[in-house]
Protein backbone atom coordinates (compact mmCIF):
# COMPACT_ATOMS: atom_id res chain seq x y z
CA UNK A 1 0.00 0.00 0.00
CA UNK A 2 1.39 3.40 -1.00
CA UNK A 3 0.81 6.59 0.98
CA UNK A 4 -1.38 7.81 -1.89
CA UNK A 5 -3.81 4.93 -1.56
CA UNK A 6 -3.73 5.08 2.23
CA UNK A 7 -4.63 8.78 2.30
CA UNK A 8 -7.28 8.24 -0.36
CA UNK A 9 -8.97 5.77 2.00
CA UNK A 10 -8.62 8.23 4.88
CA UNK A 11 -10.15 10.83 2.56
CA UNK A 12 -13.11 8.55 1.85
CA UNK A 13 -13.64 8.27 5.60
CA UNK A 14 -13.42 12.03 6.10
CA UNK A 15 -15.82 12.71 3.24
CA UNK A 16 -18.46 10.40 4.65
CA UNK A 17 -17.92 11.73 8.18
CA UNK A 18 -18.30 15.31 6.97
CA UNK A 19 -21.30 14.50 4.81
CA UNK A 20 -23.11 12.81 7.70
CA UNK A 21 -22.18 15.80 9.84
CA UNK A 22 -23.77 18.24 7.40
CA UNK A 23 -26.93 16.12 7.47
CA UNK A 24 -27.12 15.43 11.20
CA UNK A 25 -25.52 18.24 13.17
CA UNK A 26 -27.76 20.96 14.52
CA UNK A 27 -25.28 23.67 15.44
CA UNK A 28 -24.51 25.77 12.38
CA UNK A 29 -20.81 26.31 13.14
CA UNK A 30 -20.38 22.54 13.45
CA UNK A 31 -22.08 22.07 10.14
CA UNK A 32 -19.54 24.42 8.60
CA UNK A 33 -16.74 22.33 10.14
CA UNK A 34 -18.38 19.22 8.74
CA UNK A 35 -18.57 20.73 5.27
CA UNK A 36 -14.85 21.50 5.42
CA UNK A 37 -14.07 17.91 6.44
CA UNK A 38 -16.12 16.73 3.50
CA UNK A 39 -14.13 18.93 1.13
CA UNK A 40 -10.78 17.86 2.55
CA UNK A 41 -11.84 14.24 2.18
CA UNK A 42 -12.69 14.70 -1.49
CA UNK A 43 -9.35 16.46 -2.10
CA UNK A 44 -7.47 13.60 -0.46
CA UNK A 45 -9.26 11.07 -2.67
CA UNK A 46 -8.46 13.14 -5.76
CA UNK A 47 -4.74 13.53 -5.10
CA UNK A 48 -4.25 10.26 -3.25
CA UNK A 49 -5.78 8.09 -5.95
CA UNK A 50 -3.94 9.93 -8.74
CA UNK A 51 -0.69 9.28 -6.88
CA UNK A 52 -1.46 5.71 -5.79
CA UNK A 53 1.53 4.45 -7.76
CA UNK A 54 3.81 6.88 -6.03
CA UNK A 55 4.40 9.57 -8.67
CA UNK A 56 3.26 13.15 -8.05
CA UNK A 57 0.50 14.43 -10.36
CA UNK A 58 0.54 18.22 -10.91
CA UNK A 59 -2.91 18.22 -12.54
CA UNK A 60 -4.77 16.99 -9.46
CA UNK A 61 -2.61 19.16 -7.23
CA UNK A 62 -3.66 22.22 -9.18
CA UNK A 63 -7.30 21.11 -9.03
CA UNK A 64 -7.07 20.81 -5.25
CA UNK A 65 -5.60 24.31 -5.00
CA UNK A 66 -8.64 25.51 -6.90
CA UNK A 67 -10.88 23.45 -4.65
CA UNK A 68 -9.38 24.84 -1.44
CA UNK A 69 -10.07 28.39 -2.58
CA UNK A 70 -13.66 27.50 -3.50
CA UNK A 71 -14.08 25.85 -0.09
CA UNK A 72 -12.85 28.90 1.79
CA UNK A 73 -15.20 31.07 -0.26
CA UNK A 74 -18.14 28.85 0.69
CA UNK A 75 -17.05 28.82 4.34
CA UNK A 76 -16.84 32.60 4.47
CA UNK A 77 -20.30 32.96 2.92
CA UNK A 78 -21.73 30.42 5.36
CA UNK A 79 -20.18 32.27 8.31
CA UNK A 80 -21.56 35.58 7.09
CA UNK A 81 -25.04 34.06 6.97
CA UNK A 82 -24.68 32.45 10.40
CA UNK A 83 -23.36 35.61 12.06
CA UNK A 84 -26.08 37.73 10.53
CA UNK A 85 -28.75 35.24 11.53
CA UNK A 86 -27.41 35.27 15.07
CA UNK A 87 -27.49 39.05 15.11
CA UNK A 88 -31.10 39.13 13.96
CA UNK A 89 -32.54 36.22 15.91
CA UNK A 90 -29.98 35.11 18.49
CA UNK A 91 -30.21 31.57 17.12
CA UNK A 92 -27.43 29.26 16.02
CA UNK A 93 -29.59 26.39 14.84
CA UNK A 94 -32.09 26.08 12.04
CA UNK A 95 -35.71 25.57 13.08
CA UNK A 96 -36.83 21.94 12.78
CA UNK A 97 -39.31 22.02 9.91
CA UNK A 98 -39.55 24.54 7.11
CA UNK A 99 -42.60 26.65 7.86
CA UNK A 100 -45.21 26.67 5.17
CA UNK A 101 -46.77 30.07 5.43
Amino acid at each position, binding site marked *: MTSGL*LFACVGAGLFVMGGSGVLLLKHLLRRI*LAFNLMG*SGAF*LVLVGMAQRHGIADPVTQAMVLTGIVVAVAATALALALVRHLYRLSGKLELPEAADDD
Partner: protein
Amino acid sequence: MSLGLSFDLLLGASLLWSGWRALSTPRLDRALVLFIVFGLLMTLTWARLAAPDIALAEAAIGAGLTGALLLDAYGVLQAKRLAAEARK
Protein backbone atom coordinates in the same frame (compact mmCIF):
# COMPACT_ATOMS: atom_id res chain seq x y z
CA MET B 1 6.43 -2.19 7.26
CA SER B 2 8.59 0.80 6.46
CA LEU B 3 9.01 3.79 8.74
CA GLY B 4 7.32 6.06 6.18
CA LEU B 5 4.20 3.94 5.99
CA SER B 6 3.84 3.65 9.74
CA PHE B 7 4.13 7.42 9.98
CA ASP B 8 1.43 7.72 7.31
CA LEU B 9 -0.80 5.31 9.21
CA LEU B 10 -0.38 7.36 12.36
CA LEU B 11 -1.05 10.57 10.44
CA GLY B 12 -4.16 9.13 8.76
CA ALA B 13 -5.48 7.92 12.11
CA SER B 14 -4.89 11.34 13.68
CA LEU B 15 -6.68 13.02 10.78
CA LEU B 16 -9.73 10.84 11.28
CA TRP B 17 -9.59 11.24 15.05
CA SER B 18 -9.25 15.05 15.03
CA GLY B 19 -11.96 15.34 12.38
CA TRP B 20 -14.29 13.14 14.40
CA ARG B 21 -13.61 14.95 17.65
CA ALA B 22 -14.10 18.35 15.98
CA LEU B 23 -17.64 17.26 15.15
CA SER B 24 -18.45 15.34 18.33
CA THR B 25 -16.75 17.06 21.24
CA PRO B 26 -19.37 18.86 23.33
CA ARG B 27 -17.49 22.14 23.81
CA LEU B 28 -17.44 24.42 20.80
CA ASP B 29 -14.11 26.10 21.59
CA ARG B 30 -12.39 22.71 21.79
CA ALA B 31 -14.03 21.73 18.52
CA LEU B 32 -12.60 24.78 16.80
CA VAL B 33 -9.12 24.13 18.16
CA LEU B 34 -9.37 20.51 17.02
CA PHE B 35 -10.43 21.73 13.60
CA ILE B 36 -7.34 23.92 13.34
CA VAL B 37 -5.23 20.95 14.46
CA PHE B 38 -6.94 19.00 11.70
CA GLY B 39 -5.87 21.70 9.22
CA LEU B 40 -2.26 21.47 10.37
CA LEU B 41 -2.36 17.67 10.06
CA MET B 42 -3.70 18.13 6.53
CA THR B 43 -0.71 20.36 5.80
CA LEU B 44 1.58 17.57 6.96
CA THR B 45 -0.37 15.10 4.83
CA TRP B 46 0.06 17.21 1.70
CA ALA B 47 3.76 17.39 2.39
CA ARG B 48 3.82 13.58 2.67
CA LEU B 49 1.99 13.37 -0.65
CA ALA B 50 4.72 15.43 -2.34
CA ALA B 51 2.38 18.38 -2.81
CA PRO B 52 4.22 21.37 -1.28
CA ASP B 53 2.00 23.87 -3.11
CA ILE B 54 -1.13 22.48 -1.50
CA ALA B 55 0.67 22.26 1.84
CA LEU B 56 1.44 25.98 1.69
CA ALA B 57 -2.10 26.86 0.64
CA GLU B 58 -3.64 24.57 3.28
CA ALA B 59 -1.51 26.10 6.02
CA ALA B 60 -2.29 29.66 4.95
CA ILE B 61 -5.89 29.35 3.77
CA GLY B 62 -7.25 26.05 5.07
CA ALA B 63 -5.93 26.13 8.61
CA GLY B 64 -4.98 29.80 8.90
CA LEU B 65 -7.73 31.87 7.34
CA THR B 66 -10.59 29.43 7.94
CA GLY B 67 -9.41 28.98 11.51
CA ALA B 68 -9.21 32.73 12.04
CA LEU B 69 -12.68 33.22 10.58
CA LEU B 70 -14.14 30.54 12.84
CA LEU B 71 -12.37 31.76 15.98
CA ASP B 72 -13.44 35.33 15.30
CA ALA B 73 -17.04 34.22 14.85
CA TYR B 74 -16.82 32.18 18.05
CA GLY B 75 -15.36 35.13 19.93
CA VAL B 76 -18.24 37.38 18.90
CA LEU B 77 -20.86 34.77 19.75
CA GLN B 78 -19.26 34.16 23.13
CA ALA B 79 -19.03 37.87 23.94
CA LYS B 80 -22.70 38.29 23.10
CA ARG B 81 -23.69 35.33 25.22
CA LEU B 82 -21.73 36.66 28.19
CA ALA B 83 -23.23 40.11 27.75
CA ALA B 84 -26.71 38.60 27.58
CA GLU B 85 -26.11 36.59 30.76
CA ALA B 86 -24.71 39.60 32.58
CA ARG B 87 -27.88 41.54 31.76
CA LYS B 88 -30.14 38.90 33.33
